[in-house]
């Protein structure tokens, strides 16, 4: 249970301090610009807002670089093709790996982009690039998908008391110049949030918080740079979260057994189920991490016996569940890693890093369903059609969410930064 940090509990405390009063002390006027923080108002707004449609995105992040040539763009009969066969799917003309039979039943909702061509084949650089649309730059840190989308969509869900960017089972990438307010909130796949409860009387907590706000504000007032104020903003969010009934969304175990079974009893399965619960509540961006794709050796048994069954169950469970609940039209799903893997199979029966030609999968929101985009050569090494980049993919995702591509941020150094690094929308993904 949470602290029960409710307006009623705060009404009678000394110093005449309300939650709003506290928050204003804590963060200063600047931090409060934006959605109204009045607790009462937000509760009144709650019921109505929840029924309203809101857009969200779920990123299924495949850390390590999945072998897309073995999943979504098979090359049977080629020397680089590996042992897997392809199977037909519910989408006309779209065949995928035999070890993804459940996803084969959902491909009419999805679209494969087989013509990703990027240049970053180092893990850290690749994950940064694919998360931000920018190559790493020593002078500026760019915001990741989750931070950008949360930043653009959070104001449409004013009832939301939990963070607008949740990362399940992984670290995602940070908010860069957008500031710690837009940092990913990380939870494990059981939805455990550590240290959520203080176990003291709410009135006393409020008094402590007022004391804290006094210290915070003094330090902010001394003009030592931006981080003291960032700290205060995160305090404000933490207090909101501690007092929120919405924390229930993290409790996947409250789902009926048959729903949990649909996603599979794996960390990734639980993460995908949590993503659905969070999206239902209005969280604009959820990233679910499935690591362990860095198969430099012994790749095929590892894929067939471990990675693909876990992925297949969870991802198909998510797509079908979102569809049945009518959420898919407003929820974009993205499946990707930092790069693909070499068509050449190395001496250790593995595949190494390969960024020049690889695949991602998208679906939901405004995306066209049941299709594929692009073509690679017979050995899988080259993209034969128009190649697409991380920024193109990001632009397409934003379009599918209805976020204007003219949006421009101002980096901390005052330089304007176009959203998605001026990527071009992948036209074939839209009807």
């Amino acid at each position: 249970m949470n602290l029960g940090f409710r307006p009623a509990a705060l009404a009678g405390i000394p110093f005449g301090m309300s939650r709003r009063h506290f928050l204003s002390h804590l963060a200063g006027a600047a931090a409060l610009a934006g959605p109204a923080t009045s607790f009462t108002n937000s509760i009144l707004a709650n019921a109505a807002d929840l029924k309203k449609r809101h857009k969200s995105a779920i990123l299924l992040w495949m850390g390590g670089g999945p072998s897309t040539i073995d999943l979504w763009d098979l090359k049977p009969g080629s020397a680089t093709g590996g042992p897997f066969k392809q199977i037909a799917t519910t989408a006309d003309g779209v065949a995928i790996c035999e070890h993804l039979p459940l996803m084969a039943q959902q491909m009419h909702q999805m679209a494969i982009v087989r013509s990703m061509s990027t240049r970053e084949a180092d893990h850290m650089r690749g994950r940064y690039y694919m998360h931000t649309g920018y190559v790493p730059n020593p002078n500026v840190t760019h915001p990741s998908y989750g931070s950008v989308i949360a930043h653009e969509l959070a104001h449409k869900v004013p009832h939301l008391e939990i963070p607008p960017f949740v990362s399940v089972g992984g670290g995602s990438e940070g908010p860069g110049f957008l500031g710690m307010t837009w940092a990913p909130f990380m939870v494990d796949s059981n939805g455990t949030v550590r240290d959520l409860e203080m176990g003291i009387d709410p009135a006393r907590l409020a008094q402590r918080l007022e004391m804290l706000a006094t210290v915070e504000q003094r330090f902010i007032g001394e003009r030592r740079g931006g981080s003291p104020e960032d700290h205060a903003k995160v305090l404000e969010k933490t207090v909101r979260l501690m007092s929120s009934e919405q924390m229930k969304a993290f409790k996947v175990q409250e789902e009926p057994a048959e729903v949990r079974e649909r996603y599979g009893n794996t960390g990734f399965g639980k993460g995908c189920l949590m993503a659905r619960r969070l999206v239902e509540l209005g969280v604009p961006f959820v990233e679910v991490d499935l690591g362990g794709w860095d198969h430099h050796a012994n790749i095929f048994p590892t894929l067939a016996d471990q990675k693909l069954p876990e992925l297949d169950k969870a991802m198909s469970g998510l797509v079908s569940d979102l569809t049945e609940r009518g959420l898919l039209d407003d929820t974009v799903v993205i499946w990707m890693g930092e790069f693909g893997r070499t068509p050449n199979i190395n001496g250790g029966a593995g595949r190494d890093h390969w960024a020049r030609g690889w695949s991602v999968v998208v679906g939901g929101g405004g995306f066209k369903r049941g299709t594929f985009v692009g073509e690679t050569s017979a050995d899988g090494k080259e993209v034969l059609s128009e190649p697409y980049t991380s920024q193109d993919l990001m632009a397409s995702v934003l379009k599918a969410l209805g976020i204007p591509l003219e949006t421009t941020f101002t980096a901390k150094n005052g330089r304007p930064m176009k959203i998605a690094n001026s990527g071009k929308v992948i036209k074939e993904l839209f009807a």
Partner: protein
Amino acid sequence: MVCSVWCRIAVAFVVGVLAAGLSPGCLAADQPDHYGIRQVRVINERIAAGWKDAGLEPSPLATDGEWCRRVFLDLIGRVPTLTELQAFTVDSSASKKADLVARLLGDDYVDEYARNFTDVWTTVLIGRDATNANVNRSGMRQYLRRGFSKNIPYDRFMEELVTASGANTNRRGVAGFNGATNFLSGKMEEMGVANGVQATAKTAQVFLGLQVQCTQCHNHPFNKGKQNQFWEFNAFFRQTAALRRRDGTEDVQWIELVDQDFPGEGGDPEEAELYYELRNGLMKVAYPVFVDGTEVPTSGFLPGTMADGTPYGVNRRQELARLIKTSPLFPSAIANRMWSHFLGYGFTHPMDDVGDHNPPSHPELLESLAKAFQEQSYDLKELARWIVLSRPYALSSRTTPGNKSDDPALGERPKFTHFYLRQMQAEQLYESLLTATEVDETRVGEDAAKKKDRWLGQFVIAFGTDEGDDTTTFNGSIPQVLMMFNGDLVREATSTGKGGFLDKVASSGLSPTQKIDTLYLAALARKPSAKELKTANALLSARKGDVAGALQDVWWAVLNSNEFIINH
């Protein structure tokens, strides 16, 4: 005798800190601000020249309390105790800063200095993720702790890490323990393939400030790094193997890092070569060649002598250590790293990525520090002394209209016109909480280390790659705030239990205001403002005579503040 210690502190506190106050530090007129140390003067001059060129004004000096807190955090990894703070603030001699630094770098604090730099270098050398089975963190720490306790010269430190062989774990029944092996023991294999790729990347990054990991697969897109250079550097690690050892049972194992003959991938151990794959699928050959183009003999045999007395073979890692030591990048990389440790930003950003694509902000100063460090026999404590006694390190973190634009967080090249804020590292926070609440004496030995490890482990997020990349949630985000609000460590630190810190303050003979002053000084090295005192007094009356309870509220608030967790 806990009580008498406390009474002594309380008395000293009343006559000392309260009387002296914490005024902005200033130097006596006759004391030059370089303390007669040439390198301090060079730093001050070069940095000031940078201000002049950029048309910036430096901030005034930090207060004595701020500077004292800073130098304790950076040198020994924790905030000062009340006694230590008071000793510094009442000292009116012109050499008080140099004296304090001498003490912190001297025998009195040798264990704490070693603990702090062990924490720092454990992260540098093996990261924070504790899941790599081929690394024994305790063994790594034992090596580092001994090294920093003895202040071994940095060139020897590098050589011991780069050439280490032996068992990585110090346990009964394991012969030949050498904790230094842990730097490389977990970096020799990727997914069961013994290629030394991570050893290559990390050695170049840590000791030369070169980021070469991208060039494993291709020529670097924007610096001069070429793929052949990566594999030629990698060739130095091909006589090295990380062998898994068991002591009879199946599950107990350790790693033995050994040098062994490298037969070469082409079948000729006299020309022991390795092959790597170009992007177009062609294979190329590589022999050991250092980053500056220096070649070493191509033999894969370890050194030996033939029956006729002719020597043969070469130890590639020893050759590598020798070449690193002669490289100008070596002292420069450590000078940049140490500057970044103390000033918050290096001369390049990131500080371990140098080259034409990323030129330093103060090239002459970096070169001068590197050269002086080399001439000073690679003495890390001397390098630290020069930096912490310099003027840029002594400046306030408060910006002025004349230097507000100097903000590296905005992507500007740092000019060091004011002290840049940074959040404490998790290790510094942990030690500071122990210090501020005076519980350190109850935590000693291996149990204490394990407890600390478990606490630190909660923040680590691994990235799911086989390079062991990780990040931390100890980054100012919500989980960190929750930990500070409600976590066990803070719960313990704010306990009002008998004989604990708060109990001692509450039951001391100090006045209510002095009690609150005490909490502020212990955590923030300053006294509360009038407004803070007023809020604290309101808490005292709200707790209706429960002084310990009210102090607990104040203490909780102070420990949770931005001012506490930010090194300023």
